[in-house]
């Protein structure tokens, strides 16, 4: 049995076992924890084969599934350098989410654990699908458990927040479905590799108009999911109302579904459309970076602040992708991993804050560093990772993205860099108000991290350092995969857009 098959079936099996286990016991928790941990350790086994053959997809599953007279759909899945690390990120963060939920979810924990496992199943599928239909399917499968987690376990106005989240995403996904169907009717297949081969051999040539339509359909789905400004309005509500483990997963992994989709499908399925829209999208990304940072600066709630900072950081990933060069794409993928770790860790620590104080309003907090020095230190490290301090993970990603953006268009990089400065501003200001300053009467007896709290924190910080200091573990695999994608967009990695549209137009013309 293929390792990838096991990785997909394990969470699904865990889902059913959890559903069947007794309600008022530790069993669901233990099943969920064991399943996610085993899945994580097994997923490390994907690294070997992927490293041995970096130019191709490895651990491939390819079996016929749906046959109909006018189309065939194969269950086609596989792993390359990008998928690999996103799958490992998923399987790494899921045990942490289970660990968090054990102490943070008091109501109907069994169903929550079951949904976490279903979510993991969907995510692994999304990151490894090599057929557009299969991709769409897992995309929606991942959406449903998250919707229920937000709606059933969230706080305050959870119902409207969950519905807004679902309907927004649904609008995006139906447009993706339209693009998918359109591609199917034009190429006769939904197979990713099949379509790429058809393009590169010149078997199928799409007109500029067709490419634009296909691109926009995919783009809408991914733009909502990431989210890219101005499609971000669901995010603050959802992130704030969701229970902390769900927010953790939303920010750390679910947003990567969008950026992954942009890189994997938007660029390759309609290269012409992507290039035509790239300047506009880059501008939207930059607006997102600055807008997210400015709004974050004004927030009075820690969770909301991190949510807006997330919009800002995700803008970098999008900018990197639409720079259309090696540095930008590598940086985008690296930033996906780094953002997953650092934002995830921030939400984890915010969860600890909420558990201890019952509130995340900055006004209710203050001076926590005195009673809880270890907690303050850990928070500071994570925060530095998030603002992009060298030797920590986000630095590498943001640096590469800015470099890629500068190569593509220098002003893009100049504007985007503003976001880095602002992020230091809002983060440090928040730190100052929450951890330093006068000790409030409520924060006097603030308990420091317990051994149980340390368990997820240590590996997260270790990985942030690893990603920040030793890129060689991750980068070669990422580069070969992004190189493939860039080649597929008919742009080799030395291609530069130095002075705007003239060369671009010539390049397009030449093809």
């Amino acid at each position, binding site marked *: 049995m293929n390792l990838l098959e096991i990785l997909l079936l394990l969470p699904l099996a865990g889902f059913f076992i959890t559903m069947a286990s007794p309600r008022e016991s530790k069993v669901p928790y233990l099943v969920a924890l064991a399943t996610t941990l085993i899945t994580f350790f097994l997923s490390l086994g994907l690294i070997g084969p992927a490293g041995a053959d970096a130019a191709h997809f490895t651990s491939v599953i390819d079996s016929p599934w*749906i046959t*109909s007279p006018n189309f065939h759909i194969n269950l086609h899945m596989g792993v390359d350098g990008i998928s690999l690390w996103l799958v490992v990120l998923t399987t790494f963060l899921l045990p942490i989410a289970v660990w968090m939920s054990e102490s943070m979810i008091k109501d109907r924990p069994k169903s929550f654990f079951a949904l976490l496992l279903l979510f993991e199943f969907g995510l692994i599928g999304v990151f490894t699908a090599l057929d557009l239909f299969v991709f769409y399917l897992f995309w929606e*499968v991942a959406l*449903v458990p998250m919707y229920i987690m937000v*709606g*059933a376990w969230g706080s305050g106005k959870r119902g409207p927040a*969950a519905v807004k989240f679902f*309907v927004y995403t649904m609008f995006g996904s139906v*447009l993706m479905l339209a693009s998918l169907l359109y591609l199917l*009717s034009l190429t006769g297949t939904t197979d990713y590799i099949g379509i790429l081969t058809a393009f590169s051999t010149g078997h199928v040539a799409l007109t500029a108009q067709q490419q634009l339509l296909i691109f926009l359909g995919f783009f809408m789905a991914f733009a909502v999911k990431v989210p890219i400004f101005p499609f971000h309005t669901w995010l603050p509500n959802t992130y704030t109302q969701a229970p902390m483990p769900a927010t953790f997963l939303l920010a750390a992994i679910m947003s990567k579904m969008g950026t992954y989709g942009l890189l994997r499908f938007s660029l390759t399925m309609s290269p012409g459309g992507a290039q035509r829209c790239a300047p506009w999208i880059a501008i939207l990304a930059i607006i997102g970076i600055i807008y997210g940072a400015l709004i974050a600066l004004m927030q009075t709630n820690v969770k909301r602040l991190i949510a807006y900072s997330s919009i800002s950081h995700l803008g970098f990933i999008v900018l990197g992708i639409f720079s259309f060069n090696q540095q930008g794409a590598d940086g985008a993928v690296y930033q996906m991993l780094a953002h997953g770790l650092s934002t995830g860790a921030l939400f984890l620590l915010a969860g600890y804050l909420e558990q201890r104080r019952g509130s995340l309003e900055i006004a209710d907090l203050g001076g926590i560093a005195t009673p809880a020095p270890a907690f303050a230190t850990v928070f500071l490290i994570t925060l530095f990772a998030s603002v992009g301090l060298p030797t920590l993970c986000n630095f590498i990603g943001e640096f590469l993205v800015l470099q890629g953006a500068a190569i593509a268009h220098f002003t893009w990089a100049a504007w985007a860099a503003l976001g880095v400065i602002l992020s230091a501003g809002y983060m440090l200001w928040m730190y100052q108000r929450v951890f330093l300053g006068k000790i409030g009467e409520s924060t006097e007896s603030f308990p420091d991290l317990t051994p149980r709290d340390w368990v997820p924190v240590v590996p997260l910080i270790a990985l942030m350092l690893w990603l920040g200091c030793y890129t060689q573990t991750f980068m070669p695999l990422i580069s070969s995969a992004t190189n493939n994608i860039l080649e597929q967009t008919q742009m080799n990695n030395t291609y530069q857009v130095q002075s705007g549209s003239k060369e671009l137009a010539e390049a397009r013309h030449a093809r």
Partner: protein
Amino acid sequence: MPANFVPTASDYLRLAPEIALTIFGILIMLLEAVSKGKRTYLAYISLIGIAAAFLLNLAAYSDPGSAFQHMVVVDAYATFFRALVLVVGFLCILASISYLDREGAQGGEYYALILFSLVGQCTLATSADLIMVFIGLEISSIATYILAGYLRDDRRNNEAALKYFLLGSFATGFLLYGVAWIFGMVGSTNLDAIRVALESNSGSPRILQVIAVAAALIFVGLGFKVSVAPFQMWAPDVYQGAAAPVSAFMSAGPKAAAFAVFFRIFMTSFRPMEDRWIVLVWGCALATMLIGNFAALLQSNVKRLLGYSSIAHAGYVLVALTAASEVGTAAAMFYLASYALMNIGAFAIISHIAARHERFVKIEDLAGLGRRQPVLAALFALFVFSLIGVPLTGGFFGKFYVFEAALHSNLVWLTVLGLVNSAIAAFYYLRIIVAIYMHEPGEATAEIGSPAAGLNLAIWASAIGVLVLGIFPSTLLKFASISAAAFK
């Protein structure tokens, strides 16, 4: 015309399911008259009758062809729809037993009426002649009118039946008028003969124009039966007013049968003039989706909401008709099958929650179902997600296939608008999910018990069907495609 009108053995075999259903229906009415005490056993007899008809339907398919001087035809298409309406009838009877017990209305005529209605629907599925279409439609409709008003002490039931009857007979008038015009122009009511006449007569624009008017009249008559805008007004009132199992039946069985004949007429007889009617169907499909979905947004009664949603779903099926291709017909067949299953499942669960005299049919009455009855809630969620069109359910694959067919015929804008519609639909379906899982239990769910065995069986069977169609659609797809190809 052949001189010999004596039916042969294969004529009888091809009509055997209808014959069996009629015999069982009459038997039940006789037993009803002579039996004293509990009449639940009549339900089981009707189930046996449907099972027998199902087997005979398969047997008839072993010898396909036309019967009774080309009045009926047994082909893969007819077999598919006969099987579908029989399954619908079977599930609805299973879901009705405990409902009728609860309402104190257990009686043989209910089951006999369902069987007679099925006779009409089977006739529709097999009809190869406009006269048969009319007969089938009448048999099916009259039985359904009575079913809609079956709980005669209930005011809403009476209202539903009267509305359905008055508007329905009016619409049938249109159909009959259209048939008369056709007969006047072509000299035949046989579907193939009309097609041949159209193909050979393409030179004369006058005749074409008259036939186009006739086609429009037939469109009105059938459009009413499948609740196509602008003839959809009756549907929400009737679905809301009728007993929940009857609503399940009406929204699945008669609708599927009417669509079956809809496609057969337009894809055979009127195929040569498709460029004339495609525009009309395009507009109606879009209007139907929009009216159904937007009106459903405002509903607070679950049965009424599902009534509007059934209008919207009729719109999706019309998209498949707009495609005017074999792929489109196959897509509609698949869609109707999956829609029947998910809708019966949803209505069956509502019939259980509604409690005596259907007191609890508001969305907020579903509040907290997830806590009180987790299994029932999960199944309800499955049906709702299927209605939304979330992957791994039959509802998703049906939509996928319908819009794939539409794009195959280059209907880019209709596809985009249709898909956007299905996203709008998510909004009102989610209100059900929100109530089930995200609200605290209320009065309705506090006293709710487990469903009875028959109802449970119907719900589970629909759920398994929805999942099988969503995960392993290939078998049904293949059969649908074969059936649709026979229209050439």
